């Protein structure tokens, strides 16, 4: 018995701090959050009446919440699509033996080192919705001013103030910031493909397109999946960037569940805020858990 303890005891003791801290500050808080989401704690006044899943059904029936979910879908599609396209293109260009590769790699990666809050303050100004042909247009700043001064004035638009597609404009800074990261992932993927495989394919008379289609792309699939998971779960949780760009948290056009949770919390509606938090957790889990299962199975193999 003592021998066994000696075998796993030190390891457990070493892990104990992490287990306890994660247990308390992550899992216990999730459980507590779930408990609050099942109560009628809708005001600052403490009330703990159990109401089952009423908050969830009310939320899912609420057009404002549906709108925020719809916004989240648009945001995620644009964000994912943009980072994958730019990340892949840049990695593909840098994969060719190009001059100044190290320099460009740094340039593309650099935006990632800026926090969302800091870049958001700059993007708020860049994405200002005023256009030169509107009343007061002489105050136009940011991208709209830039487009106008290079003769592309017709491309000016109201960015995130657009009631339908505004949320897609929020994805622009996010893409700017994370494309470099996706590029790094893809570049690692490219580098992981041995040169012999390409040579063999070329000797077999493979055209450059077929080489990519049948040899390179299939081997990039795991990288692609990682990129989708990482960017996808960031997009679902995106809060700080929106909060930094949009001055008022309660701005309907760009409301996503994360910002709506904040608005509810500020209004002391703890039960609804907790319920939105749980819904977000489930959404993220839907993305992350299958991936974790997939990788652990792949590792066992």
């Amino acid at each position: 018995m003592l021998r066994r303890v000696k075998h796993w005891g030190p390891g457990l003791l070493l892990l104990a701090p992490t287990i306890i801290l994660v247990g308390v500050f992550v899992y216990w808080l999730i459980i507590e959050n779930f408990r609050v989401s099942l109560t009628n704690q809708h005001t600052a006044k403490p009330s703990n009446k159990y109401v089952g899943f009423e908050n969830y059904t009310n939320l899912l029936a609420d057009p404002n919440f549906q709108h925020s979910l719809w916004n989240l879908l648009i945001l995620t599609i644009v964000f994912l699509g943009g980072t994958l396209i730019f990340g892949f293109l840049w990695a593909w260009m840098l994969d060719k033996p190009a001059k100044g590769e190290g320099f460009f790699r740094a340039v593309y990666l650099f935006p990632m080192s800026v926090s969302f809050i800091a870049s958001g303050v700059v993007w708020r100004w860049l994405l200002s919705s005023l256009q030169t042909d509107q009343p007061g247009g002489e105050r136009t700043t940011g991208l709209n001013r830039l487009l106008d001064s290079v003769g592309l004035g017709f491309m000016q638009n109201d960015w995130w103030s657009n009631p339908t597609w505004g949320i897609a404009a929020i994805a622009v800074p996010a893409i700017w910031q994370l494309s470099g990261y996706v590029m790094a992932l893809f570049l690692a993927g490219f580098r992981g493909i041995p040169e012999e495989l390409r040579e063999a394919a070329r000797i077999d008379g493979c055209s450059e397109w077929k080489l990519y289609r049948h040899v390179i792309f299939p081997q990039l699939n795991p990288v692609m999946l990682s990129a989708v998971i990482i960017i996808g779960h960031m997009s679902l949780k995106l809060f700080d960037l929106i909060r930094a760009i949009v001055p008022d948290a309660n701005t309907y056009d760009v409301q996503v569940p994360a910002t709506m949770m904040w608005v509810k919390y500020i209004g002391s509606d703890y039960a609804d805020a907790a319920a939105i938090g749980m819904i977000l957790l489930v959404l993220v889990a839907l993305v992350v858990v299958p991936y974790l299962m997939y990788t652990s199975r792949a590792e066992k193999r």
Partner: protein
Amino acid sequence: MRRSLTLIAAAATLGLTLAGCGGSGQAPADSAAPASEATGEVGVFTWWADGSEKAGLDALVDVFKADYPGLTFDNLAVAGGAGSQAKSVLAAQLKAGTPPDSFQAHAGAELQDYIDADQLEDLTGFYAENKLTDQFPKDLVDRLTVDGKIYSVPSNIHRSNVVWANVEVLKKAGVDPNKPADSLEGWFADMDKIKASGKTPLAVAGTWTQTQLFENVLLSSLGVDGYNGLWDGQTDWKGADVTKAIEAYKKTLSYTNSDRDSLSDWAPATQLVEDGAAAYNLMGDWAEAKFAQDGKKAGSDYSYFPMPGTAGVFNFLADSFTLPVGAPNPAGAKAWLSTIGSAEGQTAFNKVKGSIPANTTAKTDDFSDYQKSAIKDFSQDKIVSSLAHGAAVPVAWLNELSTAVSKFGGDGNVAALQDAAAATAEKFAK
């Protein structure tokens, strides 16, 4: 070596766990101690972190230090978002049972949330001790009283239904700055002239300033009784007169700057009027402090008038200070509250902040012309409570209505805003 590292890690964990459990068991301090004998630190929580608001707080603290040399003032101000940031920090502290000694809250329905949550001490005895009831206007005391008890000491009174105008822009557009419109229709006609002159007629910023504009259009269109009825259930949100009011709000919005949501707070919108880019800005009278700070002269640079159609009505909001349950230094907090309630404290604070003193015995001889006119108006006008500043309805109601107003800024759907407002009112009205 490895063994000892493990031990250290284990000890650290244990320490953290214990520290986590320790915080809540503080002994309740004796709240009966008199303010005059108080010592130590007084932590006061506000969202007055910069500009004229911070200057006002500093002036108040100077009076406090002179009144109570034995106490140290601890400034716990949290900046941002018209108090929304601060309120979330405060909510967390109150929930954790570690409140500051005193915190700022808007008088009225916003205070109700804290009262319902049993987070505030009853200050009725404090009012009697300091004879404050007679020094504050009855209208104000009535709005602070809940079930016969008073829970906060007001520091200042603001008015939300004031339009600030750029005199130069008005003159150029052929609008007489000395004869402001007295109805919404007249105002729209003036704004058409300004639009034709190439300027933005009306400057507005993000969601809360739009809500403030919305409330004042409602007030102008529905009148005092109609407006008050919206909050106590006497006015039907689905009625035809409300539809008409929302149509008027839609027309008002059509005169505003298109980048309203991009402006970071109220000040950039007021700045547009200051700079002559826009003619009007509807803003609470804290704008007066901004004009004064920037060296502008009333009459020649800017002018002000009540929101057209609301002359003789004072759309009121007030900041007030509280004594939370479980405050670490209640005697010190009472000392702070007595400075706030005092005539000297109110004079020092309000002169700088641009608001008017809640205490009617405060000296106001050297206040600005605007402030003197507001003091006069407050004493004779009909008083209504502001929606956007938490005086009329609880925060949750305000939040939902603000979302609907923000949505309306995009789609302009009158029926949708009316339905949403009616549904919200039904949900929250008692």
